[in-house]
């Protein structure tokens, strides 16, 4: 039996309520509305593009006009109630497409850019389990070929054990999170090379 009074080494599973209270809404606009140059139509277009490309987050800073758009709850935070209206709701793990190649990057011109692969992200806040039970083997490991229905991990909150599926065909190339640690909503769990 461990000693009762030892200090926590890693409070990763626990959320600081003060931190949560400081966090803003999941959709915010930080500029003064009187001088805003971003119009509703433009924001609508951005949202449509996010939907189209499966993006979960978008940030724009244009001449001091800043906007951050996120789909689903903000990282580390639950939505208090189901969203109203046609806000996209999460049904499974979020698969983030590879980032777009940017021009003017810092990589030397004579090196081929590293292949950026999509990741399978956590659908909720909770504890990440790679194994069905502590003594079992992992659901998946690097090199495993998975399909849409392959269960790749469990994310647990309040003893609700939520199976996460790969939702795409491919080969697992990286496991990005250690077993039995806390994960945030949208946090990348696995890297996958689509087939």
């Amino acid at each position: 039996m461990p000693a009762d009074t030892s200090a926590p080494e890693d409070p990763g599973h626990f959320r600081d309520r003060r931190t949560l209270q400081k966090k803003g809404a999941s959709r915010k606009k930080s500029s003064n509305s009187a001088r805003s140059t971003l119009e509703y139509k433009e924001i609508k277009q951005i949202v449509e593009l996010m939907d189209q490309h499966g993006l979960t987050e978008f940030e724009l800073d244009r001449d001091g006009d800043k906007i951050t758009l996120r789909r689903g709850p903000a990282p580390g935070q639950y939505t208090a109630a189901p969203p109203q209206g046609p806000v996209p709701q999460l049904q499974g793990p979020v698969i983030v497409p590879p980032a777009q190649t940017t021009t003017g990057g810092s990589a030397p011109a004579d090196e081929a850019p590293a292949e950026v692969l999509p990741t399978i992200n956590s659908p909720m806040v909770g504890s990440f389990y790679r194994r069905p039970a502590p003594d079992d083997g992992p659901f998946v490991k690097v090199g495993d070929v998975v399909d849409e229905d392959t269960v790749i991990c469990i994310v647990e909150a309040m003893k609700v054990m939520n199976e996460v599926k790969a939702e795409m065909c491919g080969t697992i190339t990286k496991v990005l999170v250690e077993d039995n640690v806390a994960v945030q909503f949208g946090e990348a769990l696995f890297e996958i090379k689509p087939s």
Partner: protein
Amino acid sequence: MVEERFDMLEVREALKGVFPGGELVYFPETVSTSDEAMARARDGAAEGTFVLAENQTAGRGRRGAAWFADPDTALLFSLVLRPVGKDVSTWARMTSVAALALARTIEDTTGLEPKIKWPNDIYIGGRKSAGILVEAAGDFLVLGIGLNVNTPRCSFPDALQGIATSLRAELGDGIAISRSALLAEFLKKFGECYPSMLSGKGFSRIIPEIEERSMLLNRKAIVYQGKTQLQGIVRGLGDHGELRMEVPPSNHPIEILSADRVRLAVP
């Protein structure tokens, strides 16, 4: 002593009262009601599909932990749920909602004073009498419950002596409790609590009662998860049923989402 079997008419009627489209699946013996319910849910079983067994040969709790149940004396069932709206963050409230319905059922049918040990166990007189297991996959949840009803104290294995109990053992009057009537009452109470899971306002209305029924509230508890261990005073629940605890030295409240084990610092 021969234990009474479930009264299928009574159970089916209770199920229809809450889930009109629900199908009752009964086994004298099965491996695990949750295994059966998960398999059926994966094949598209409707909300309200209800798997009931007199006995389980390999009942399980969280992460493969074994769940002991004495044959024919426990209430062992699993229920398929397909919550409206797919916001999975609200699904974490399921254990709290089910624990409340089960605690109300036990209190109203037996007069005992069950306590909820966050988030998924029911204790009576300091001993565990029931466990709740919730498994989710895709667009469904399976709520699994094991409740020791008529189990004699001597039937618990040595490892559980002193820490497990049953309703009949706590009542101490030797009179068997009807598991069918208990189950019918649970289904009715669950039907009342279930809508609270999906609405922030609805859930906030039942939080005070869940807190009041908690065996940890305002007590010093220790939470273990992986390599992490925290000790503090439990102060209630968060918006999704998280355990809110004040941890020294700052004593500002933190919210705990999951734990391998929780115990009172002073039993």
